[in-house]
């Protein structure tokens, strides 16, 4: 393989990757079903989530640690919800430290979780498997 060919393949791959990156960051991720719930409080709640390193133990859409449950739909799961989430934030548990959060920070976190809940489903529990290995009709 000549040097010219190698450079050409590398250049083509990188160019595609660059365009693909722009597409992923814009049209590929433009849909946000939770937009209505994205309040200023929810935005601050995300920063609280990061400040206390919640991702070390909790996942959102499967991204994060495994010590605690995935929090994507904690607000709408039957038997859970904002009060349930707040109880954990206030008292902690055997696995979760009590972070001594202020009332304001707890509210912000819960608004953030409410926003996430409206954006989609994780983990998916009901789905249809297609012949090519893909899935469809995914629901809670």
């Amino acid at each position, binding site marked *: *393989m000549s040097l010219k060919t190698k450079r050409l393949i590398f250049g083509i791959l990188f160019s595609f990757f660059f365009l693909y990156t722009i597409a992923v960051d814009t049209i590929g991720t433009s849909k946000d079903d939770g937009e209505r719930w994205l309040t200023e409080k929810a935005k601050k709640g995300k920063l609280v989530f990061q400040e206390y*390193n919640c991702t070390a133990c909790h996942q959102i859409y499967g991204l994060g640690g495994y*010590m605690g449950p995935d929090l994507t739909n904690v607000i709408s799961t039957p038997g859970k919800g904002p009060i349930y989430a707040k109880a954990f934030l206030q008292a902690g548990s055997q696995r979760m430290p009590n972070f001594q959060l202020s009332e304001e920070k707890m509210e912000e976190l819960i608004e953030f979780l409410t926003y996430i809940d409206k954006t989609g489903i994780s983990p998916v529990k009901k789905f249809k498997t297609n012949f090519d290995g893909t899935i469809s009709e995914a629901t809670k």
Partner: protein
Amino acid sequence: MKKEIGIVFIGLAFISLLGGLFFGSLSSFQFVIPGFLDSFPFVKSRPLHVSLVVAWIFLSAIGGIYYFLPKHVKLELYSDKLARIHFWIFLITGVLILTCYFIGKFGGREYWEFPPILSIPIFISWILFGINYFKTIVGKIYHWPIYLWMWATGIFFFFFTFTEAYLWVFPFFRDHIVRDITTQWKAYGALVGSWNMLVYGTAFFIMERISGDKTVAKSKLSFAMYFLGLTNLLFGWAHHIYIVPSAAWIRNVAYLVSMTELIILSKIIWNWRKSLTESVKKFHILPFRFLVASDIWIFINLVLALAISIPAVNIFTHGTHITVAHAMGSTIGINTMVLLASCFYIVQDITKTQFNSLQQKIVKAGFWITNVSLLTFFISLIFAGAEKGQMVIEDKLTFQEIMQHISPYLTVFAFAGIGIFIGLLMVIFPALRAIFRYLRGNA
């Protein structure tokens, strides 16, 4: 006489690995025994483990490159001073990151859990590394062997992916959870790909040195595999976001590209048929032994990676311990084995002698303890993940009940982690001792 900067990097890499193993063992027990050492919670021990292990991979790969270029590729470093500045920035930033974790100051992003301000010196240090690398090799060799391409690719894409990992500081990314999660996985997937380029480049280099065959690193087939690997680095990351409500074409591209890894898998199986005799013949050579182990782990991890790239399988495995098995199997089984091969090659090169027979016995016993423990560790995570995935889909048990159900597997995982720690300690100790002796001698 001046200390060789590559060796200094490797000395620090070993120390990082020991720290990473210690905090990994600690956090695995915190995982199994709730409340264990709650004065130093999991939110602190986990990032310490992750960052120290990532530091081990980067430091040892970079150390190898700084060592091999002048010593074996016969290209004098563009600037030794720049490499030393690189080292000190890395060290000081590393100490600051660890301090932040100890005092509970977080940036709270997966993998990069330190405050974002500390990403700036890391970025600067890579610019220095990039300048040094490219100024050292560009125009000096016309037909780069594959390892020079791979190292160059790793350095180049590190900038791209590291920048992408910090796009969240802009509200356009931060305030849109689907975009944020997608970009994060994209950045991390490609980041792992970029360090894999550094590691696999090192593997090619060591293999060339041991075999003495310089044709492989310039062959058409090697470059075809390199470009296939690069395509996967760039477009194969999205099997991590099958459940994220982003556009379907992102998932389809990833699924399609991931399946091309079947070609790599076939090549590995084909190569084994040819190289088995040689493997048996050279197994006594320490660096070669680590490369053989990494080959087997590449095979195991590739089979797992292919399986979890199928959406219908991924729906069960995503967010379970199978993803952890995939990550740990790759970082310990593949990356660490290759990098240990590189480090042992360098240690034997600088000391100009072999380890004595007791040291060799210790290293070989450590090698087996590590690999057997890693296999146990890997299998227990697969079982834990498979059961968890099944139970989550069935939706009959609470999270706590699921965790209780899989706790026997996680107990085995935690003890196997101790086995890996002991095994690697036995492997590293003689090498680290030799490095310190050498550095003291050259002080």
